[in-house]
């Protein structure tokens, strides 16, 4: 085994373009296999981050996605400048690099012909941080779901608030939760899917108050950072701390659903949540 691993590593070093290294267990997996496995490590079941486009492809019926509010973009409400320069420049560079306007993409689409509204966060955009544009898009999509009485599904992936927007970022927590509360009141279903990682201000707002809270296996989910907690309580945290499995055990998740089963899961779930002629005979 050691020999095989070594040899595989050597091969990987020789032809790096062919190999992907699992961020969790460091196994070397053929890029083709990695992609075919939906970026889930065949060795350790690590669910690697997806781009919003990959998520849409996995979740929605082919060609059914229509983006809404694509033009909503970042703002720089406090003209923020840190050690590395201005937020405005950083945001502009990010937008250009990954061709997104904000850390979330919203729109409508179908899951097995059932219309839904989705908001899909993308960690590549400043760590999926909750900026004013992010919050605005999540709220606007909720309002769209409310008007059209369609189930709303948010896929979270976020390091938390976007501190470059200061207090305005904090306010997005209240803003998005207010939008969800309106759905609750109107009986419009809202499902939260927490993917790796969902922490800080996003965990403490829309991501944990789904009618159902779903998570991908192994996803890191928590309010405070591991380091901050360890410094505060002066002790080491258990290895499984803040994993999806840990949250399930502590009562905060309804279910852990593997990536490959996610669409089927929603196809099975949605009929319980929506009124249709076929429903309840």
């Amino acid at each position, binding site marked *: 085994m050691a020999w095989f691993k070594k040899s595989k590593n050597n091969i990987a070093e020789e032809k790096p373009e062919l190999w992907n290294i699992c961020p969790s267990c460091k196994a070397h997996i053929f890029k083709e296999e990695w992609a075919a496995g939906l970026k889930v490590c065949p060795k350790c079941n690590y669910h690697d981050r997806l781009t919003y486009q990959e998520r849409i492809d996995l979740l929605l019926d082919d060609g059914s996605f229509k983006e809404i509010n694509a033009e909503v973009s970042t703002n720089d409400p406090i003209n*923020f400048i840190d050690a590395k320069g201005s937020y405005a420049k950083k945001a502009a560079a990010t937008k250009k690099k990954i061709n997104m306007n904000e850390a979330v993409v919203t729109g409508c689409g179908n899951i097995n012909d059932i219309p839904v509204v989705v908001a899909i966060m993308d960690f590549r955009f400043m760590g999926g941080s909750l900026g004013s544009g992010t919050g605005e898009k999540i709220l606007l999509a909720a309002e769209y779901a409310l008007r059209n009485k369609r189930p709303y599904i948010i896929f979270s992936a976020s390091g938390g608030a976007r501190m470059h927007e200061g207090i305005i970022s904090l306010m997005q927590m209240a803003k998005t*939760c207010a939008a969800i509360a309106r759905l609750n009141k109107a009986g419009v279903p809202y499902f939260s899917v927490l993917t790796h990682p969902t922490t800080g201000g996003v965990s403490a707002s829309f991501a944990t108050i789904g009618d159902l809270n779903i998570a991908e296996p192994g996803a890191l989910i928590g309010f405070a950072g591991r380091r901050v907690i360890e410094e505060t309580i002066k002790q080491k945290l258990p290895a499984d701390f803040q994993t999806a499995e840990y949250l399930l055990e502590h009562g905060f998740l309804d279910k852990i659903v593997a990536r490959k089963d996610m669409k089927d899961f929603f196809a099975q779930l949605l009929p319980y949540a929506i009124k249709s002629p076929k429903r309840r005979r």
Partner: protein
Amino acid sequence: MDLDFEAPLLDIENRIAELEELGSGSEIKFRSEITELRRKAKSISKKIYKNLTPWQTVQVARHKDRPLINDYIKNICSNFIELHGDRCYGDDQGIIGGFATIGNRQVMLIGHQKGKSVEENLECNFGMANPEGYRKALRLMRLAERYKLPVVSLIDTPGAYPGLEAEERGQAEAIARNLAEMSQLETPIVIVITGEGGSGGAIGIGVGDSIIMLENAVYSVISPEGCASILWRDGSKAPLAAEALKVTSDELLKLKVIDEIIPEPAGGAHRASDETMMAVKQTIVKHIDRLKRVAPTKLINKRYEKFAALGRFGKKKR
């Protein structure tokens, strides 16, 4: 904990204290000198407090002699009945609450408790609440809704407690639940940021119809120290971060995150507790009286629009 930028002021104050002690018993001795020193102290404190940097304001907001919730309860409330428990796990002392009467208005008062003595500090975790605290607050707010009492929430916390058990029992969920429920609570909610408005721990009881802030209070998405250590990779750059984050009341008013600033006497609330609390009382009463005239449905819609508008720049499709 003396504030270093207050040094000239503290010198004079110490001198006044000395003279008062020396001259005690005698009415005339040092009288004119003390009067003169007092005049000087006032002028210096005005000067210092007019030009506080954001980082200095953070230190004032954290000053141990600033009025805390228990001071407000003692001084501007009557008939306070503290209510305990989340009906689920425990009774957190980082957030307390109960029925209170403020200027003849019956309210449900909730707020962070930091504690004065070391024992108190430890008992209430320096105002860093656990999930039980947020859940107790929600229970009390729902009771207020049923009894048609306005909610008054006093914010003063470094943040929600980042502990192992707090995570286990759902710190994130507890805060999120409050954000959602407060946005739909069918009774007026008046928020007063009296000291530190620390991130999620603050907004967890901070959604309301009127958001009011004491002049030298601060409200921020992250502590300046935390921000500095992440973005400057150096916690000692907190003064820079405090400035960049725009944590002071004047900035927050411009951003429309708050509706009103309650001015503090020169020298800060920690020098003029009674005066400050009286101003807080009057402002609370004013807002309650205004909000009580708004129909519940309208109240909730306006509250929604208020938060929906935060971070909305330019025209958006809705």
